[in-house]
């Protein structure tokens, strides 16, 4: 399954590293980022995504990071490892555990990172990479920021879809 641009994205409720649950509802814009602890692409884009969460937090934008990887085969993606990382790095956003991988499947997430921007009605407005260069921090998550700006302004992101670049999500089985 995957979600198409303009279509309502699946609801979910997932625990963060403190055990509190989060859902993608009730905000002018929500960014859902599938990510993980050990992928070089996710790590390279990490600071840019954290900066987006900080810069847009007071504008009603919520950023939810989700780790869906199979922790059995990749222990560095375990819930415990997620907790340790958040405690060490002081994240400005919740890091959610998708143990069943149902949310990743429902969104059609493919890689880490894979970014989805939802509007207040939870419709998908942007999907893809944060920007065009994981190795170029000066790009500053331009595609993601542009999409958020468009949603907050009531317009359409352009581009609305880009190719997600990163490590494959580590599926179970």
């Amino acid at each position: 399954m995957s979600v198409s641009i303009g279509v309502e994205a699946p609801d979910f409720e997932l625990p963060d590293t403190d055990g509190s649950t989060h859902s993608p509802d009730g905000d002018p814009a929500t960014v859902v980022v599938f990510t993980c602890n050990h992928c070089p692409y996710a790590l390279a884009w990490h600071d840019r995504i954290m900066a987006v969460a900080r810069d847009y937090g007071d504008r009603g934008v919520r950023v939810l990071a989700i780790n869906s990887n199979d922790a059995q085969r990749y222990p560095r993606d375990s819930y415990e490892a997620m907790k340790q990382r958040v405690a060490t790095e002081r994240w400005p956003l919740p890091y959610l555990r998708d143990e069943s991988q149902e949310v990743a499947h429902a969104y059609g997430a493919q890689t880490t990172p894979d970014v989805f921007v939802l509007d207040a009605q939870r419709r998908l407005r942007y999907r893809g990479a944060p920007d065009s260069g994981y190795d170029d921090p000066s790009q500053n998550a331009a595609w993601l920021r542009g999409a958020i700006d468009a949603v907050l302004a009531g317009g359409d992101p352009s581009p609305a879809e880009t190719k997600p670049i990163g490590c494959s999500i580590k599926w179970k089985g």
Partner: protein
Amino acid sequence: MRTPDIELLWWAGCPSTDRAQAELEQALGDVGLSNARVRRTEIDTDDEASSRGFLGSPTILVDGVDVASPSPEGDVGLSCRVYRRRDGRISPTPDPDDMREALQRAARAREEDGR
């Protein structure tokens, strides 16, 4: 310059193989080894990863020696390897300077050994 044995270990779950190959070929050209052949070896099972000590894709071996130091958190298995460039950036491929140095070191060692 003597030509070392060069092997690029890769896993299909990681998209950085072609970039690594291109950067490796550039490094080979930079050190005067552009005629060297790069063997590409796919690692696609946990058993293969274990038997080769595969720290993630891509891994480049020059005369059997990794061009980059394994990171402390590196695990053997099917994953994308995390490199740190000399300027501190995280990267999915080794620093080209590390590749060049490894190639030159191996070529010199072969000359000294008369191989």
